[in-house]
């Protein structure tokens, strides 16, 4: 039941689309790294050998993961308020991967909280395994959802797409793997600097190696992705090489720069370039789709809510961000200080 179907989108709709995409970026760059931490927890080795790595991951993820997680809620509520037909189409057709994401979120968050509360080894192993596996599964299905939208397999309308092949196809599988890889890569890069700051040089080296390996894997997946998109999602592929080309090239440059910076141990600077490499992929995809929110068939103008709703949402987000940004800055900076100056 659309209010109207103008051909040109309300500027407020564009503003909200940009804010939504900023929320997606914040989620990927912040919460994505928390998921990546779970992957490294999984690969940290036996209880004794991996203890220090797991402690660092827990120390870095613990204070921030809940706040980082809320970016997902932010994105969901913005989409369903400002672009209801988009939300309805995506969530009805992709209900399988989205339900798995929701269950993965439950398993990851609760197992992480539970693991901190238990002391016996078997209990810590059990919750640790649940935490780590769900940290891999959740970003995979989120990526698969992205791949479904990007490859144009989610038509407008309720449950109009195929409930299986929409997210189980070359683009989705590749996007899922890419998302898992990007999360792991971001986590390794962030954890390297965290370990360095805590004065744990050996751990910093270990995560630096992981960063170099995962960064190379993600780069390889990106190259494979270009080939897959050309075959499987020609519409998006064409547009990526059009208007979105500068962003694609930015991602490539930032990704290569990150590997060099990591090799030369510039751990603070590499955080920025690694985040930029991942963010540029997201914005490149977004720009390639614009002004279509679903390819093909649903434009931003068609998806946008009536103006009164858009205005109320913009006001809400403006007021909300004014409170949110300083609070979030306090949280993130408070736990970025070395532990020694924070302790009693």
């Amino acid at each position, binding site marked *: 039941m*659309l*209010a109207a179907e103008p051909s040109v989108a309300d500027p407020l709709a564009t503003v909200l689309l940009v804010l939504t995409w900023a929320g997606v970026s914040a989620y990927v760059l912040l919460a994505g790294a928390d998921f990546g931490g779970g992957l490294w927890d999984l690969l940290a080795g036996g209880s004794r050998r991996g203890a220090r790595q797991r402690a660092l991951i827990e120390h870095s993820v613990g204070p921030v993961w809940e706040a980082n997680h809320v970016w997902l809620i932010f994105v*969901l509520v913005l989409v*369903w308020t400002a672009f209801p037909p988009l939300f309805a189409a995506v969530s009805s057709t992709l209900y399988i991967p989205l339900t798995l994401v929701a269950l993965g*979120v439950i398993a990851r968050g*609760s197992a992480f909280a539970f693991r901190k509360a238990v002391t016996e080894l078997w209990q810590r192993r059990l919750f640790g395994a649940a935490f780590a596996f769900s940290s891999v599964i959740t970003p995979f299905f989120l990526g698969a959802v992205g791949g479904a939208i990007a490859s144009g397999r989610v038509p407008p309308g309720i449950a109009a797409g195929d409930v299986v092949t929409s997210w189980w196809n070359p683009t989705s599988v590749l996007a899922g793997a890419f998302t898992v890889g990007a999360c792991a890569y971001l986590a390794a890069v962030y954890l390297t600097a965290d370990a360095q700051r805590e004065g744990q040089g050996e751990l910093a080296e270990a995560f630096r190696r992981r960063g170099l390996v995962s960064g190379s894997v993600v780069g390889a997946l990106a190259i494979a992705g270009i080939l897959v998109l050309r075959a499987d999602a020609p519409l998006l592929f064409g547009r990526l090489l059009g208007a979105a080309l500068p962003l694609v090239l930015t991602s490539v440059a930032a990704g290569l720069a990150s590997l060099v910076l990591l090799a030369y141990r510039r751990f603070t600077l590499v955080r920025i370039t690694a985040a930029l490499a991942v963010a540029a992929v997201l914005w490149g995809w977004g720009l390639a789709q614009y002004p279509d929110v679903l390819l093909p068939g649903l434009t931003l103008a068609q998806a946008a*809510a009536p103006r009164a709703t858009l205005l109320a949402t913009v006001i809400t987000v403006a007021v*909300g961000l004014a409170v949110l940004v300083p609070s979030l800055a306090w949280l993130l900076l408070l736990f970025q200080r070395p532990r020694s100056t924070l302790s009693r």
Partner: protein
Amino acid sequence: MLPLLLAATASPVAARSQMGFSLGWHIVVACLGVGMPALVLFVEWRGLRTGEPSYRLLARRWARALGVLFAVGAVSGTILSFEMGVLWSGLMDHYGAVIGLPFAIEGFAFFIEAIFLGIYLYGWDRLSPRTHLLSGLPIVAAGVASAFFVVAANAWMNSPQGFTVVGGRLVGVDPWAAMFNAATWPETTHMILAAFMVTGFLMASVYAVAMLRGRRDRYHRLGLLIPLVLGVAAAPVQIVVGDWAARYVSTEQPAKLAAMEGLFRSGTHAPLAVGGYYSGDELHGAVHIPNGLSLLVHLDPDGYVAGLDQVPADLRPPVPIVHLAFDTMVGIGFALLALGVWLGYCWWRRRELPESRWFLRAVAVSGVAAVAAMEAGWVTTEVGRQPWIVYRVLRVDDAVNPAPGLGWGLVAVLAVYTALTVATVFVLRLLASTPVPAAPQERDVTDYQVV
């Protein structure tokens, strides 16, 4: 069990079961998320003022439990956002633009809650005591605000306002009017009070069990008394607010009121029916208080109350469930009020907690009872609105996602939640069973790690 589940996977029954189950699970933890921060801050403040180790240890132990419960609440609330689209895509497609606003505001409130909870828990020994206490205040405010906005969205489903439908198109959308609809104030007040009651009685019940097992030191007495006072203070207010909410229902949703009361025949001098079983348009075995319902609704025995005979048969909610749920909620509400009177009387006479084991037993069950009353209240309002998802605007059957195989989601959710429930209970019991020193000293307090 399995065949039963498979039979139930036919939507929209499966969708309603999945939503009801995940929401009913989440709301218990959500209540604690609303109520607990205030109690933690209160005991922390008392600890700072008096320096007494009992208060200070209570603050740390409650904060640790809050940390676990908040995490579980955050993630069990997330699936509800997904379910809004995965299950109710028809609702969101049609009316997301009308009712999205309170969810968006709630999103920010939740953000503030999560941020300051991180600061509060992880900054316990890292911030100055005063800054630390202040960093907890936004959690209380944001928790109450979250409850308000998310229940405002539910209220809109009972009193849909803020839009017009002309020729199948949505016109004149006013999201502010939708958010502040006729049901918003009574429903949100009712729920926020319920959250404080659930928190108060649940937390007190933990200490009642410990005291029944012989731990009657100051630490346990404070642990019982402080939450219990919150619960019993809210109980009488809740009964007044509940009456307000029922009056709203009587004017705006007469079919729901008739189902709550099991009233078939419309008319004046309507009796108040307590208990009984409704079948064949009649309530069997109920205790009838003459003119009771007319008096409650209109303060006048001649007051007219619409019964189910005014509602077409296909638009009637399942009366037996609604009537039973409503009576359960009201009955428990009055029982909790009586518990408060008991406590108040003993305090007035002796400035002391009642010593009897029966009092402790009553407090021990009050937590579960408060949860049961709150769940029964949600069953009353949600089942009482059937067959509508948006009252008189959209039917549940038209809102549900028609995608094939949707019912398997219910199976997956039940499986994951079984594990989640077992793990949550296990971890909370573990936290509760960590030994408490008989007379806490400074070292006992500072050695207890919040996170």
